[in-house]
């Protein structure tokens, strides 16, 4: 008993000692963050000034905006026989583009993740490559692929795939990098090879994140595929343009609603999956 007492006293004094050794750390004045904040505010004002937005027009425009919204009602569904197949085509373009991107990025992401890549440079190169793919607008990708495979949905699929690839590589690699390194080590320590480590250790761990990103990307891609209609890739984007050009706002609203429903159902799906995974 007395020994126990003694040791516990030790603990106490130990704690005291530890505390005494440390200096009071004064609250850090972080000039960096303050600087960034001030700079951000100034830059915001400067940007506003440079943009030279006409605020009086803002009010008028808003009135016009709501009048226009009002004009759009009720939606005109008489064109459904054209709109729905076009919507389906856009959906197909988005799905296939996303799937291709996911499959390829699953390979490349492991090369881009610094904790798994054979070396740092491979990771950096793959990542810069991914950035470039993201920065080139989908429309330009579409043009590039039209040269290769002609008009139609196919260049749309490819354009979406490449553009998505750029984002998915980045976010997949990030998820992999965020993974607890110990788990990888544990498999390594049991003599597993790198493919096995990825398949049995990394993928199960990051699966939820991958699925979330994939579905988010699908949402974006449905939106993108509507733009691609404009470059001859067909689909619902062209229908929308057609309606807008012929001032058929009621049909335009219907088309917008169809697009909304497509993207929204994917969002719902992702919410559902979040509960399940």
């Amino acid at each position, binding site marked *: 008993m007395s020994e*126990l007492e003694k*040791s*516990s006293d*030790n*603990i106490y004094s*130990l704690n005291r000692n530890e505390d005494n050794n440390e200096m009071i750390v004064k609250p850090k004045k972080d000039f960096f963050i303050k600087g960034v904040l001030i700079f951000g505010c100034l830059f915001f004002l400067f940007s506003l000034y440079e943009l030279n937005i006409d605020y009086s027009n803002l009010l008028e425009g808003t009135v016009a905006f709501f009048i226009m919204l009002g004009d759009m009602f009720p939606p005109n569904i008489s064109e459904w026989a054209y709109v729905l197949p076009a919507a389906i085509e856009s959906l197909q373009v988005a799905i296939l583009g996303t799937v291709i991107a996911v499959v390829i990025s699953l390979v490349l992401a492991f090369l881009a993740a610094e904790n798994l890549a054979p070396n740092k440079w491979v990771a950096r190169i793959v990542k810069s490559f991914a950035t470039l793919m993201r920065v080139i607008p989908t429309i330009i990708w579409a043009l590039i692929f039209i040269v290769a495979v002609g008009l139609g949905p196919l260049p749309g699929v490819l354009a979406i795939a490449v553009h998505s690839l750029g984002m998915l590589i980045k976010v997949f690699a990030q998820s992999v990098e965020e993974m*607890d390194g*110990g*788990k990888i*080590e*544990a*498999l*390594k*320590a*049991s*003599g*597993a*090879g790198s*493919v*096995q480590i*990825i*398949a*049995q*250790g990394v993928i*199960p*761990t990051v*699966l*939820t994140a991958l699925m979330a990103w994939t579905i988010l990307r699908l949402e974006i891609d449905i939106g993108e595929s509507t733009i691609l209609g404009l470059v001859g890739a067909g689909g619902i984007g062209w229908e929308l343009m057609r309606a807008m050009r012929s001032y058929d706002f009621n049909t335009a609203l219907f088309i917008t609603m169809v697009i909304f429903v497509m993207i929204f159902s994917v969002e719902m799906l992702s919410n559902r999956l979040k509960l399940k995974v």
Partner: protein
Amino acid sequence: MEPILKIENLDKVYPDGTVALSNINFNVYPGEFVVVIGPSGAGKSTLLRCMNRLVEPTNGNVIFKDKKINKANSKQVKQIRREIGMVFQNFNLIDRLTVLNNVLHGRLGYTNTIKGSLGIFSKKDITEAEEILARVGLSKQKYKRADELSGGQMQRVGISRALSQRPRLILADEPIASLDPASSKNIMDHIYNICTEDKITAIVNLHQVEVAIKYATRIIGIQNGEVIFDGQPSQLTDKVIDEIYHDRRPPLVHAQ
């Protein structure tokens, strides 16, 4: 008796210049239950991880069953690692997989790449994994996801994974540091009993001196990357302990 593991003049200097180990020499003989103690930052983890080359030694040799691990090529390293089970402080299980699947990961080193990647294991491996789970009292949990377990249960899965490698040597790096005292005792009992029954050699890093004294057949004390004690638990006097921890002796494991 031939040592199962020989450490010869082992040095480890991390790229940032930290000298984590300097000139470590000792042999471990089959059947020993070695506990490594030492203050935080002494180099315990580094030492253990050099043994299966999760950390690349800077100098010296680590010889496991007459094979120099530090000289082995990547294929040989994998083969050697198969025979060395490792147990981690924070378990390092793959959360979303079942307990059984996690245990079967111990067989990956023996399974061909494709099958292993797809998680296809032989009937025999599965039966064996189930037996191991029965041994650590987790039969009922085998289809649970690893992240549905309590800490103590997770560590038992960690041990099972190591066991399913049918290892000759088990390395455990603070296997009980993130467990509550009750689970700690349970885990140490399991490691100790299994190693004794199966004649597996064990090297365990521990912070808790009493626990070390209770289980070890031999204790190695490390400080500043050097072995400063190597002997029987009975030889570990308070003076020696004080020396190992300087006056940084970790608080004892008592609430009362």
